[in-house]
């Protein structure tokens, strides 16, 4: 039984081998190129001659092979078109045919052909430059594969070498044609792009064609070039789409493209072909700078200015890489005119550091500010970024050590704006002692107490858009003051905007008071402080002359004049920010509200009590006749009484003196007769 099984298994194995051999034979016969089928293949006729590897001809004294690898051609993208698909002029020609015309790839590849014609290469071809590349120079001829095919001559991995055929050191092109870059292929292969492509096999890494385009290759001086200054950012950002987060200037406005003429373009920092992930590693690293600039004695030859850079300061600055800080900003990112190809990369620096390269928005604001305007006129007193922010040790405004930290701002501005300093001496307005006044103001006091959210100079004047108040755009222009103050005093602003002092409400054309007209600009005091309460009458009186004067004729005004702070002041009755015309039903002094307003101080005040005339004067017979006549009645009474009494006394005087003389005489007579024993004071 077991033996029978073994025999059957051997038989089955033999049968399978036979069947497999038969099937293989049939397939071989079907698919191996049999001579009978070769005549049907495209180009088979041509290959009858050109399939001979020895076939050659002589052109310009050189032996040129005319061999065409039929297999390669057959598997190429053009294999199905046959020879005459491209060499159309040979169609139907008798053999041996003449030298065919140059193949016109543009017949099918019109776009590419057109681009090539416009390109540097195409123009060189048109010029008859022998070194000029044509389609075949890069793509080959009979063995063209699709770009995605790794075998293609222009597959990404091969592109550098295709281009390198001409653009590597020592080639006729590199030697004889004006190409500003050198060591292109070497540099590329060492760059982060080349490394990715060639060493790490990252086929999406940019090749030459990625930046220069495959066909429309133009010099960077041509505005249409993909590497022209104007276009380079667009070219780079095809891949580096998020690069704006690093180069913040581009966040808004895409300035790289719009203002490419004034801004550094990508290759200014990331040199073409040499691009590294840290571009300044080559000669511009901070360490290299510090080799010289760490020397405390380093001075500029021109003017002896110290060129010492405090490394610790830089490392603690906002531009350093410490945790919580923004990011690492290298020397050459600010001092951007460095040139890595020099022994001293910094020797090409001509201009001062331009912070707006990154701080674009702020730069725009600064230019419009009075500081920026003056700076634009080359005013030596005009502060630039560094005057306020410092240089290498720059810190964020949240850092208590920063000169722009809230508590340090007044001292910062005081450097120029303190009385006697350079800004203060040029100032012709009415605000004086601003620093001193601010320090003693409520804002200054709060700041001294460490309340960093209180108003400092920049809260009202802004940090970078500082303008004189006469400028309509100024944050402290009368029209903008309520909004400026309202940024913190929000509810108050709303009240004010609905008060009679708001233009919108009163419709007055003449200037109306805004916050600082009553509260002052810098010497702002708490309104419950005596100084404010006692000064407010004259403050209101600056405009409301008559009504303020008559206020002082009545009780509230008189006691206020004596320094009594509790007596009602203007705003106690009229309201402060919500002051309205008395006739307005919403006014604190309207018929409906007046009793309650008086009642704030005079508990139980009635409507009749409110009839007290708080601005009455006895000098106005038309407005207040009864006061006027009462006053004059009383005055007449006074006059009559004094005149009568005075006359009586004056008439009396001579007689009184006469009586005195007589008494003295009698005394003297008495004294002569007896010695007086004075018990009373001897002053007689």
């Amino acid at each position, binding site marked *: 039984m077991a033996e029978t099984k073994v025999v059957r298994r051997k038989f089955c194995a033999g049968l399978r081998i036979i069947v497999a051999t038969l099937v293989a034979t049939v397939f071989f016969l079907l698919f191996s190129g049999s001579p009978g089928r070769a005549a049907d293949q495209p180009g088979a006729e041509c290959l009858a001659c050109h399939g001979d590897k020895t076939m050659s001809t002589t052109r310009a004294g050189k032996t040129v092979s005319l061999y065409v690898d039929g297999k390669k051609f057959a598997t190429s993208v053009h294999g199905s078109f046959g020879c005459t698909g491209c060499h159309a002029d040979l169609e139907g020609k008798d053999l041996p045919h003449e030298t065919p015309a140059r193949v016109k790839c543009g017949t099918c590849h019109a776009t590419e052909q057109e681009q090539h014609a416009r390109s540097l290469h195409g123009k060189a071809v048109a010029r008859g430059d022998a070194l000029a590349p044509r389609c075949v120079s890069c793509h080959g001829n009979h063995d063209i594969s699709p770009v995605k095919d790794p075998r293609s001559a222009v597959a990404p991995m091969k592109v550098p070498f295709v281009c390198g055929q001409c653009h590597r050191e020592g080639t006729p092109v590199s030697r004889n044609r004006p190409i500003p870059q050198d060591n292109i292929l070497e540099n590329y292969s060492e760059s982060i792009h080349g490394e990715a492509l060639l060493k790490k096999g990252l086929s999406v890494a940019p090749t030459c064609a990625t930046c220069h385009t495959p066909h429309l290759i133009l010099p960077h001086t041509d505005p249409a070039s993909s590497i022209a200054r104007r276009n380079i950012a667009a070219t780079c950002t095809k891949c580096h789409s998020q690069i704006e987060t690093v180069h913040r200037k581009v966040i808004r406005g895409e300035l790289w493209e719009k203002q490419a003429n004034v801004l550094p373009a990508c290759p200014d920092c990331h040199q073409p072909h040499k691009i590294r992930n840290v571009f300044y590693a080559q000669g511009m690293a901070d360490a290299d700078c510090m080799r010289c600039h760490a020397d405390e004695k380093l001075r500029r030859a021109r003017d002896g200015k110290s060129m010492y850079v405090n490394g610790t300061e830089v490392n603690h600055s906002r531009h350093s890489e410490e945790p919580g800080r923004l990011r690492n900003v290298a020397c050459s990112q600010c001092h951007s005119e460095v040139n890595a190809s020099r022994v001293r990369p910094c020797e090409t620096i001509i201009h001062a550091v331009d912070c707006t390269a990154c701080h674009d928005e702020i730069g725009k604001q600064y230019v419009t500010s009075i500081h920026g305007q003056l700076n634009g006129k080359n005013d030596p007193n005009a502060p630039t970024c560094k005057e306020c922010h410092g240089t290498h040790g720059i810190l964020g405004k949240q850092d208590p050590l920063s000169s722009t930290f809230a508590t340090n701002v007044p001292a910062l501005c005081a450097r120029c704006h303190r009385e006697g300093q350079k800004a203060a001496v040029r100032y012709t307005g009415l605000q004086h002692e601003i620093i001193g006044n601010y320090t003693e103001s409520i804002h200054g006091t709060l700041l001294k107490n460490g309340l960093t959210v209180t108003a400092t100079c920049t809260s009202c004047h802004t940090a970078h858009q500082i303008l004189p108040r006469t400028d309509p755009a100024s944050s402290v222009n009368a029209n903008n003051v309520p909004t400026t103050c309202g940024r913190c005093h929000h509810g108050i602003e709303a009240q004010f905007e609905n008060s009679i002092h708001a233009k919108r409400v009163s419709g007055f054309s003449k200037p109306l008071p805004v916050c600082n007209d009553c509260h002052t600009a810098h010497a702002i005091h708490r309104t419950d402080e005596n100084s404010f309460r006692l000064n407010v009458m004259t403050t209101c009186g600056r405009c409301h002359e008559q009504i303020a004067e008559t206020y002082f004729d009545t009780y509230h005004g008189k006691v206020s004049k004596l*320094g009594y702070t509790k007596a009602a002041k203007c705003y106690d009755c009229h309201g402060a920010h919500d002051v309205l015309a008395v006739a307005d039903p919403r006014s604190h002094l309207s018929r409906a509200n007046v009793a309650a307003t008086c009642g704030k101080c005079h508990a139980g005040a*009635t409507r009749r009590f409110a009839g*007290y005339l708080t601005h009455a004067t006895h000098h106005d017979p038309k407005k207040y006749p009864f006061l006027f006549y009462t006053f004059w009645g009383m005055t007449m009474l006074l006059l009559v009484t*004094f005149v009568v009494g*005075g006359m009586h006394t004056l*008439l009396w005087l001579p007689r009184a003196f006469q009586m005195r003389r007589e008494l003295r005489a009698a005394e003297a007579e008495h004294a002569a007769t007896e010695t*007086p024993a004075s018990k009373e*004071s001897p002053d007689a």
Partner: protein
Amino acid sequence: MPKGEVAERQFIRFSRLQRILHICMIVSFMSLALTGLTLKFSYTKWAAVLSHLLGGFENAGYIHRSAAVVMFGVFITHLVDLYRLKKREHGTWRALLLGPGSMMPNRRDLAELVGTLKWFVGLGERPAYGRWTYWEKFDYFAVFWGIAIIGSTGLTLWFPVFFTRFIPGSFLNVATIIHSDEALLATGFIFTVHFFNTHLRPEKFPMDITVFTGRMELEELKRDKPREYEALVASGELEGKMEEAYPAIVTRTIRAFAWGALAVGFSIVLWIIYAMLFAYR
């Protein structure tokens, strides 16, 4: 009687209560005047300084009202005293008012006024005055008038919420004018005419302090109030109205006080003149 010599016994012109009331009135009047005028002339620098010296305006207000209470007290006490006098000596109000020692102005006062004016211009002898001369009576009733006018308006201004239940609010303005101008009249009159007529007449120089001591020398009584002297002699009541003089230390103290009051009064007058003439608004 020669000057500088004091008679052992002196005529009693004012009772102890009257003297106390006069002193109280001086203190109260001075306080009222000082504190009130600071308010009236609040626009002068003086007022601010004084207000400060008085402990601030609020304090000045307390002083003013306290002094007013004292003044009312003086006034009421005097009325009560009058009532007791009527009961003790006269029996009826009519007798009190029309009696010889009455303060009530009468026909004789008019005659004495005319006589005095004639004497002033040298057309006659000095009239023989009785216990109260016409100018003394004027001063006396001026106080009544003042208390009524200044007191009533003062109370209105003190309790405006209460009084405006009955009067319009603008009457407070009127009351202010009346209160302040009447006070000015009182102050000005007391510190000039009254001072001169009663205390500082040249023949009495340096000062008549009868109202403080209550006593006057008999000689002076004979000279100044001959009619009263004669009446007292005739009725034989003179001896009963004589008492021992105060010791020198008492009169000296009184004089010091009186001079102080006088100085304050004159200062106030100067201040009023300055405020009215040079700083008025």
